[in-house]
């Protein structure tokens, strides 16, 4: 705050536009200054987040004292400048009409078959600022159309006006300069290298910013016109970056999703997963409640299914485990937290359907749950130094990657593998053996410690720190020792919300420790239950063997056993659990074992809120307003009533009111963990892994075009390890459960480390190898067959 107050007053200049005098900050572009008085100068290449290039020349204006019309998008206003736009100058109007006529010379005018038709800046500005007739009588230039520049992105070179928005985005914002303007003159065209398609994680943004129909997606090809679409502001459910989206639907079906402008979070961008992966929503839905009878599930009515589920849960009571997965809205996660404590009287609740540890839970309770929004995207941009720990931004939170790259922040990454993403951020690598991040954090070089103690320095820790014994402890103590701000970036969109909602053992909503009597009484008052009925001792890990044996029932929401390191919910474990109630929208391995399956609403069928990694609420509106599907919390409310409990509100607005009224915990927060790092030899190959952005995730099902732009599935070893193996083209990696054969390449890993994608098609470290991060695996050259 003091920084902001001490900031120098911004220098301004006086300028006259169309006879209107105005004062603007020094360095303002003429096109922006004109916007301030409501004058829209036509433009194609101009984009507020890209460097000016003045490529399209559509924005010509007359500046007094300059001999020729100037491009408004590149003309910085200076003090005393007098500008005439098309509104007040025949010269400017003529120039703009001339440019538009030129831009249309080779344009095919195939608007009827063009996906941009109806929302096309070229159409609109040709009408508003162009001549009504063309004087061109020659033959138009012809290109083959469309050509795929990736499996997803189609390029129609005839329509291109060479504004270079796409190439500038790829180079300046995404850092993937895979497309470039080739040739000259009338033959100028966007192109790719012959051996490298445009497989950028951010390629979809070029479609959105293309001011003509030159770039379109295979996914949305000819699907609808803008006037068919109903647009809803939503938030992305794929990761914790928290992008604002616009979801367009037609006749009960989502047709496309666009990045929605949000300067504080995703600016104008999003990643291809958030943009293109939504077809999973419509596939394989559970449409009615199901009840198990004689070993098989049969459709049942809601009252019957609720009755069976309520009786089973009532019988198990506090011996029920609640697994909520990481994808719920904060309202639904809060519903589970309340249902577990207030109705079932159990503290066996966990949202982490991934590799986790008790130490991590302690860390989350102490350092993350209920903390205010201190480390934000803006803070990343202004930070002098950012330390990444067990976190690969490009794969695990792409908007964080974009923001770190934009700021040019000094980045050091404590990671198991150096990636292109890290190189594109200009970061440097501190390579570690997987699982041994803790020791590296303790032995940090002095200069990094120094950098972390600068004001504004940030430590970003990923969810994979849970795989390192002592890792969360070391992160917490490093932050405390250096004074650096600490932020935890999970992968899934619902994890931070679930944490704040108290869907973790030992934790009540708002970061309240379960062990604190005042915290319990505050929450009990909000829920309208007796404070003594709430559990007061934190449960041990829901998923460990001991508690699994003691549990008589499981209440499970959207958990995929394959996301857990083996063998959490192996088939046998599921069968052993006496009574399983599954709340899900899709059939899964859990629903196969469930005694009662209750269908719940998708993100498109309810409104709600995600909390992004910053702690910022990301509300989303209901896309399908006439959907009858019920949210998890509403279904839990029905269960609660059937079990004779009320415990406050169970509808979205009611829960939001409860959360707001409760606020965050003001008292003493939980103890930080104190776990010693794992020491000992790390002989043999150790497994490094994370989930790549585009992989075999269930929420990317039904998207062949998107899947084809994923990175190739390869194992990575160091160059010396590769030559020690005899420089094979492929390796066989063997874990306790089995082995996979993968192409191999040399990369930035330690000599005894092999990187394998966590959940790529045909290669899951949990289900195929049975290994977890840091485990010793066998690596042999060549194939098994």
């Amino acid at each position, binding site marked *: 705050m003091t920084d902001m107050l001490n900031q120098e007053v911004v220098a301004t200049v006086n300028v006259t536009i169309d006879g209107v005098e105005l004062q603007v900050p020094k360095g303002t572009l003429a096109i922006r200054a004109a916007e301030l008085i409501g004058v829209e100068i036509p433009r194609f290449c101009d984009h507020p987040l890209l460097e000016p290039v003045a490529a399209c020349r559509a924005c010509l204006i007359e500046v007094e004292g300059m001999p020729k019309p100037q491009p408004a998008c590149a003309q910085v206003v200076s003090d005393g400048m007098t500008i005439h736009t098309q509104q007040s100058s025949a010269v400017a109007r003529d120039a703009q009409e001339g440019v538009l006529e030129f831009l249309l010379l080779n344009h095919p005018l195939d*608007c009827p078959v063009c996906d941009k038709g*109806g929302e096309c800046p070229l159409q609109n500005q040709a009408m508003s600022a162009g001549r009504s007739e063309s004087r061109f009588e020659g033959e138009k230039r012809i290109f083959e159309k469309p050509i795929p520049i990736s499996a997803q992105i189609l390029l129609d070179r005839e329509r291109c006006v060479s504004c270079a928005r796409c190439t500038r985005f790829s180079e300046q914002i995404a850092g993937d300069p895979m497309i470039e303007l080739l040739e000259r003159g009338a033959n100028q065209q966007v192109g790719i290298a012959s051996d490298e398609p445009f497989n950028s994680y951010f390629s979809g943004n070029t479609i959105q910013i293309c001011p003509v129909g030159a770039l379109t997606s295979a996914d949305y090809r000819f699907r609808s016109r803008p006037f068919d679409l109903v647009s809803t502001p939503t938030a992305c459910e794929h990761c914790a970056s928290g992008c604002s989206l616009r979801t367009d639907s037609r006749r009960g079906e989502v047709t496309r999703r666009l990045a929605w402008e949000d300067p504080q979070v995703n600016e104008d961008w999003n990643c291809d997963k958030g943009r293109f992966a939504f077809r999973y929503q419509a596939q394989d839905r559970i449409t009615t409640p199901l009840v198990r009878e004689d070993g098989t599930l049969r459709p049942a009515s809601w009252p019957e299914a609720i009755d069976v589920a309520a009786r089973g849960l009532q019988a198990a009571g506090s011996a029920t485990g609640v697994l909520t997965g990481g994808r719920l809205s904060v309202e639904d996660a809060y519903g589970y937290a309340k249902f577990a404590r207030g109705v079932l009287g159990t503290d066996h609740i966990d949202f982490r359907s991934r590799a986790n540890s008790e130490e991590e839970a302690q860390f989350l309770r102490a350092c993350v749950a209920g903390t205010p929004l201190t480390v934000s995207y803006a803070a990343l941009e202004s930070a002098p130094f950012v330390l990444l720990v067990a976190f690969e931004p490009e794969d695990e939170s792409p908007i964080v990657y974009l923001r770190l790259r934009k700021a040019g922040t000094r980045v050091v990454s404590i990671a198991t593998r150096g990636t292109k993403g890290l190189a594109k951020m200009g970061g440097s690598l501190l390579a570690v053996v997987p699982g041994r991040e803790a020791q590296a954090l303790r032995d940090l070089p002095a200069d990094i410690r120094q950098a972390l103690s600068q004001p504004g320095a940030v430590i970003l820790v990923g969810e994979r720190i849970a795989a390192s014994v002592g890792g969360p402890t070391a992160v917490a103590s490093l932050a405390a020792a250096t004074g650096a701000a600490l932020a935890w970036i999970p992968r899934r969109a619902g994890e931070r919300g679930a944490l704040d909602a108290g869907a973790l053992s030992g934790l009540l909503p708002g970061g309240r420790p379960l062990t604190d009597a005042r915290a319990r009484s505050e929450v009990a008052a909000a829920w309208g239950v007796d404070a003594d009925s709430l559990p007061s001792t934190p449960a041990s890990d829901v998923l460990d063997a001991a508690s699994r044996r003691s549990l008589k029932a499981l209440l499970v929401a959207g958990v995929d056993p394959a996301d857990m390191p083996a063998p959490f919910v192996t088939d046998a474990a599921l069968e052993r659990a006496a009574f399983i109630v599954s709340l899900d929208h899709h059939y899964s391995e859990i629903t196969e074992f469930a005694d009662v399956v209750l269908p719940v609403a998708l993100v498109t069928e309810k409104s709600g809120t995600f909390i992004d990694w910053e702690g910022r609420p990301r509300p989303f509106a209901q896309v399908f307003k006439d959907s009858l599907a019920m949210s998890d919390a509403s279904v839990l409310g029905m269960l609660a009533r059937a079990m004779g409990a009320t415990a406050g509100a169970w509808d979205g607005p009611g829960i939001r009111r409860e959360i707001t009224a409760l606020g965050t915990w003001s008292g003493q927060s939980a103890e930080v963990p104190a776990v010693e790092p794992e020491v000992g030899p790390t002989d043999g190959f150790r497994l490094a892994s994370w989930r790549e952005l585009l992989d075999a995730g269930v929420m990317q099902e039904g998207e062949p075009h998107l899947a084809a732009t994923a990175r190739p599935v390869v194992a990575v070893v160091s160059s010396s390890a590769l030559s020690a193996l005899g420089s094979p083209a492929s390796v066989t990696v063997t874990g306790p459960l089995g082995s996979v054969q993968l192409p191999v390449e040399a990369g930035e890993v330690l000599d005894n480390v092999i990187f394998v994608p966590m959940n790529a098609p045909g290669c899951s470290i949990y289900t195929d190898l049975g290994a977890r991060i840091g485990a010793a695996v066998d690596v042999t050259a060549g194939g098994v067959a």
Partner: protein
Amino acid sequence: MAELPQAVRGFWVTFRTMFKKVVTEQYPEDAAKFPPKPRFHGRHQLNRWSDGLEKCVGCELCAWACPADAILVEGASNTEEERFSPGERYGRVYQINYTRCIFCGLCIEACPTRALTMTNVFELADNNRADLIFEKKDLLAPMLPGMVAPPHAMVEGSTEQDYYANRIKGPGPVDQGVNP
């Protein structure tokens, strides 16, 4: 002279009319004798090129122009294996809801390929709403001699531009000599 009673005067009008020429047209008995005027706005038709390919490109401009929201179109991509129209795009779904249509003809004016025109057919009454939603199969023009039912490839050696310039005169090769 004494006035005739009102009733008699009324009947006189009736009586006199019995000897005048009848203007009532007998429908449906004499329907063939009185065809609609050539530019009467009747039921729509989706036209074909002379080789049978559909003219509709699924652009939805008709639906956009429609003031009664009676038209629904969904486009789709032609492939080399399955081609319904020249060029990249065709109308996969085409519906006109005749309970809504006001026969204004704005859709016809909007159509960029002259795929949509209106016939003189006006006998559209039905006893239920569902049957008044005409699908693409109901609206497509009949196959004329020389036409081949799509899907099939464009005439050999032609591009969609040849179709739009009316250079395609049948399923045979492009007649370069014809001036459009």
